[in-house]
């Protein structure tokens, strides 16, 4: 199986007539079994089509046209309009919202996330590339054009969660080359406040039978790794985790942010060194190099399997 989405997931693209959104729509339609992109929304563009997908002025029109609830939305509107677009999606019953847009002030993100929580919806991102279930479906620009995505992602037992969109593909490609496919790969976004953190996705992976191990990409800034470490310890997770920590050089440069907005080191707990220690305490192995990840996660999965078989039922 997979988490978050599968072949039957319906979704819309908000901001569908933008240049990047047109490409993204094509990519999603072409990939795997073909995504069910049931509509697009751009105010003032009712009646148009993007790669055969009907365009509406409002999310409500898209839902009415579909004739049934729509599960997801990929939001690719400019930062000043993102909050309104996400509110519109949530208030029209959308349950999974992937926000691609970058540079959204965190107050807006926090408002969106709180409304989503109240309504039982989930946000992935902002500043992310979305979700991919290898060979089945992708929601967002993750992996790029279908042909490129197929080169990097293969089906298998590893759940991938990454604060960097590009590194989601780099790590998955490395896993694939080593014969370790992915159950689902999620680009969660690089901002200081995001809709779904590692710890908030863990219960889904934990419940997914296909997933046998987790690989995460992480960087300095924020407390998300501490939250994951706590979750793993508190819930006695069945899933071994291997983490890769980029941006170790930033420890020498407090107050500066590199790569993503969320990487700024504001306190000692935000540093790479501190995070590595915290992850290690929770039994999460931290890889020095990406090419070491496949062997590390394979070994950890084998250890768990051995321990389970060896212990009395």
């Amino acid at each position, binding site marked *: 199986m997979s988490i978050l989405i599968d072949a039957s997931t319906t979704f819309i693209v908000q901001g569908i007539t933008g240049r*990047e959104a047109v490409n993204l729509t094509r990519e999603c339609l072409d990939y795997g079994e073909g995504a069910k992109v049931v509509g697009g929304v751009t105010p003032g563009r009712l009646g148009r089509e993007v790669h055969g997908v009907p365009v509406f002025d409002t999310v409500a029109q898209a839902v009415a046209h579909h004739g049934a609830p729509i599960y997801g939305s990929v939001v690719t509107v400019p*930062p*000043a309009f993102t909050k309104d677009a996400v509110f519109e999606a949530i208030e029209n019953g959308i349950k999974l919202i992937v926000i691609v847009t970058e*540079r*959204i*002030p*965190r*107050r807006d*993100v*926090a*408002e969106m*996330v*709180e*409304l989503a929580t109240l309504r039982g919806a989930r946000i992935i991102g902002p500043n992310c590339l979305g979700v991919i279930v290898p060979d089945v479906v992708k929601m967002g*620009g*993750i992996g*790029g*054009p279908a042909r*490129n*995505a197929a080169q*990097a992602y293969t089906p298998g037992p590893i759940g991938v969660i*990454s*604060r*960097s*969109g*590009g*590194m989601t*593909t*780099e790590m998955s*490609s*490395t896993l694939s*080359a080593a014969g370790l496919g992915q159950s689902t790969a999620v680009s969660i976004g*690089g901002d*200081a*406040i995001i809709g779904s*953190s590692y710890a908030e996705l863990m219960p889904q992976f934990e419940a997914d039978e296909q997933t046998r191990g987790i690989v995460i*990409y992480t*960087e300095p800034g*924020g*407390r*998300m790794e501490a*939250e994951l470490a706590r979750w793993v310890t508190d819930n006695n997770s069945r899933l071994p985790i291997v983490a*890769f920590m*980029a*941006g170790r*050089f*930033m420890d020498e*440069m*407090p*107050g*500066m942010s*590199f*790569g*993503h*907005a*969320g*990487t700024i080191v504001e306190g000692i707990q935000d540093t790479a060194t501190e995070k590595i220690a915290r992850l290690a305490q929770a039994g999460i192995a931290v890889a020095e*190099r*990406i*090419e070491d990840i496949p062997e590390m996660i394979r070994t950890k999965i084998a250890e768990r399997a051995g321990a389970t078989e060896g212990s009395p039922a």
Partner: protein
Amino acid sequence: MRFFEYEAREVVKRAGIPVTDYGFTTDPAEAREIAQRIGGPTVIKSQVLTGGRMKAGGVKFADTPEQAEEYARDILALEIGGHMPRGVLVDPKAEVAQEYYAGVVWDGTRKQPVMIFSPVGGIDIEQVAEEQPDKVGRRHFSNILPLSDFQAKEVIASTGVTGSALNKLVPIVTRLAKLFVENDMTLVEINPLGLLPDGSFVALDAHMDIENEARGRHKKLLTDLGVGDEETRQAREATPFELAGERVDATDHRGVAGNVTEFDGNLGLVIGAGGGSLTLFDAVRAHGGKPANYCEIGGNPSVAKACGLAKLVLQKPGVDKIAVMMSIVSNTRVDIVARGVIKACIELGMDPAEKIAIFRIPGAWEEEGFKILEKYGVDYADRSVSLNEAARRAVEKIEPHPPVAA
């Protein structure tokens, strides 16, 4: 972006929180006038965006206006932590019965702002939290439900404060929380918040950061405070090389080829994207390489932009070679970056095969890109070569700098 104390105090004042009758100036003579107006002893405080002012001699107590002028002159000439002061603040030396702390920050895990209050102020709140945890109150508040006085009342009361102090503090903390939200701050602090002998409260220092992404919607406030659009107030001032990088990125709106940070090594880096740049920079250093710069490319920049960035790095004094490396690209086109960096070498009269230590960008349009690289004899690698291995190969090709003659 961090505000200077004099700016932060103005924001606090505008929010309806009592402040002292301070004055800001860049002129020692005017400091005397302000001290005269205030009457009585004053505090002269350096306006710098760095901590440790007191230790560095950037805060002095003056008994007379003449002394205020003298201290202002000293402080205006005093560099603190590599920064020259923007000016001085002349503040009445308040008789304080007790120092309190009030602040608001984001909690990224809970995804809500959190009010922090303590009756132990004047020192670092982290220190209080460690030594007297029962004296620090915290309370999250909703992003979408109305903010109301009772929330501030709860956090203040949780630290044992009651009586008229409680009732006077509630509106201050509520206004601070409102100010935080309405101005897209990422941090606001009043420390110390002074209790005066007459039982009233006054903000004696303020600390504030506004979110960079939200600056566009606070133009009026920033204009009023005299903060220019170009003022970024990074932890370190941008170097001319970094500013040139910004100009390259601004040449057109397509993609990113910038975010340049200067270092003093000999290996020029043309790397991307966000996470890829972090990974590659670490990898170069892990192999003993000395990066000349950090940068980011991504989002499918034009040939001109990739070329501009490569030229900038190639021309940086002390750069022997450049390494062009990215994590697997899906949006950015390999052939466009290849064209850009080769064009940069040729236009500078350099041999691409010699100057480009390695080109490791796999992904979209890689066949086309690799063909071009082959034509010019550039050493390239596909996805079977890891980021780490590519970095190692680049470092290996760099001649170690001969020792500098004394």
